[in-house]
């Protein structure tokens, strides 16, 4: 017994080191699996609050671009209002031809990272505003990401510039779909994989969200085709997509609350169980 105590006292630093190393490595490994720990994320009270303060200052520097975007969107909405026949052409996020009823929650980005392989965005509304995991996040130009963690007042978003993110997307002119991923290289481009070679694709074609996911409604803008590559020994294209959004400069965002989501998930679960 004495020897055990002696051993612990003699090696206390090493034991403390190994313990803390174990904890931090566990947190690291956990963070690389898809759904992360709730504790170490910027959606908590401390970091969310600090980011909100910082953002209050940064906001003033971006007022001009933010105003320009709002003016543009106002103009678009006004054109919608005055020319009602346009409604069928424009990919409105809510109630696409009444197929997928969805609610929109307006929120603001208070922290945005884009310089690592796994990027997250923090927004200043959370569970109190009705935000839950796996809701889609967009802005006036296109998609931004999917909600990951929520706290009462803040939430984190898995940005599309995150190598873990996978979003169903398709060509606007046909119905060939693939999954949208990121290769971690450039903040202006994402990759659309698993598009069959049968599809006829040209540079400049528009890519929109596909109707297969329960997160986003169909037809939200993503970007345009920039480069088309073919993998060897495979019958699929890998397409470089140039994003409409500048992911390094985000202001207000909309969170899509799909009403059909639970029904769809339950239905699909039922199919798998049987």
């Amino acid at each position, binding site marked *: 017994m004495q020897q055990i105590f002696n051993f612990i006292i003699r090696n206390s630093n090493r034991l403390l080191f190994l313990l803390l190393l174990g904890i931090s490595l566990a*947190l690291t490994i956990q963070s690389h699996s898809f759904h992360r720990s709730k504790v170490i994320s910027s959606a908590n009270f401390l970091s969310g609050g600090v980011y909100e303060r910082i953002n209050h200052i940064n906001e003033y520097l971006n007022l001009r671009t933010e105003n320009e975007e709002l003016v543009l969107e106002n103009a678009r909405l006004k054109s919608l209002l005055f020319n009602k026949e346009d409604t069928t052409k424009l990919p409105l996020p809510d109630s696409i031809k009444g197929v997928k009823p969805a609610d929109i929650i307006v929120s603001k980005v208070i922290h945005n990272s884009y310089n690592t392989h796994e990027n997250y965005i923090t927004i200043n509304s959370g569970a109190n505003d009705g935000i839950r995991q796996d809701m889609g996040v967009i802005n006036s130009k296109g998609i931004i990401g999917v909600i990951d963690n929520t706290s009462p007042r803040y939430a984190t978003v898995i940005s599309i510039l995150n190598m873990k993110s996978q979003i169903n997307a398709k060509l606007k002119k046909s119905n060939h779909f693939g999954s949208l991923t990121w290769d971690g290289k450039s903040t202006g481009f994402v990759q659309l994989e698993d598009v069959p070679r049968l599809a006829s694709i040209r540079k400049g074609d528009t890519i929109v969200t596909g109707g297969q996911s329960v997160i986003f409604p169909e037809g939200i803008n993503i970007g345009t085709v920039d480069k088309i590559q073919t993998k060897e020994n495979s019958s699929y294209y890998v397409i470089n997509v140039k994003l409409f959004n500048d992911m390094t400069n985000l202001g207000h965002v909309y969170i899509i609350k799909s009403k059909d989501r639970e029904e769809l998930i339950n239905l699909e679960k039922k199919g798998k169980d049987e």
Partner: protein
Amino acid sequence: MNSALLVNIFRFIMLLAIQIVIFNNMNFLGYISPFPYLLYIILYPVNGNRAGLIFSSFLLGLIMDMFCNSGGIHATACVILAYYRPYIFKFSFGLSYEYQTIRLNESLTPERFSFILVSVLLHHIVLFTLEAFQFKFILDILLRTLFSTIFTIITSIIIIYLIKPHKR
């Protein structure tokens, strides 16, 4: 003794605040950001309590992770640096480092510079390896480590000179 503790607590909070408010928003060329919060571990007193250093470094890293949404990578890198700090001292200053009173925030000698360089390099290699977590990014990891090390060292030395107590 008590004042040394207060100085350390003050340094801990100030470096974290500067890191989060200013340096985390710096993105040279899109992906290079300096991490001068390491100065807390580097400037910790040579003969200070080692368990205290390891534990406070863990907390430092954990708070950084909270703000960067990065799981536990900063905590891991900080704990490893804190634990191996005496070995880096031995490497840079020779065996008798414990009997000297090394004050890092005086003029920059080659020994002091090599100590800062090795510490920052160790921390950044661990950090970026864990961040990428895949071997196919080995080139990317090395590139990020190299550039971030350069920028961290430059900002660290500037901060050391700025907070250096004035001699009269």
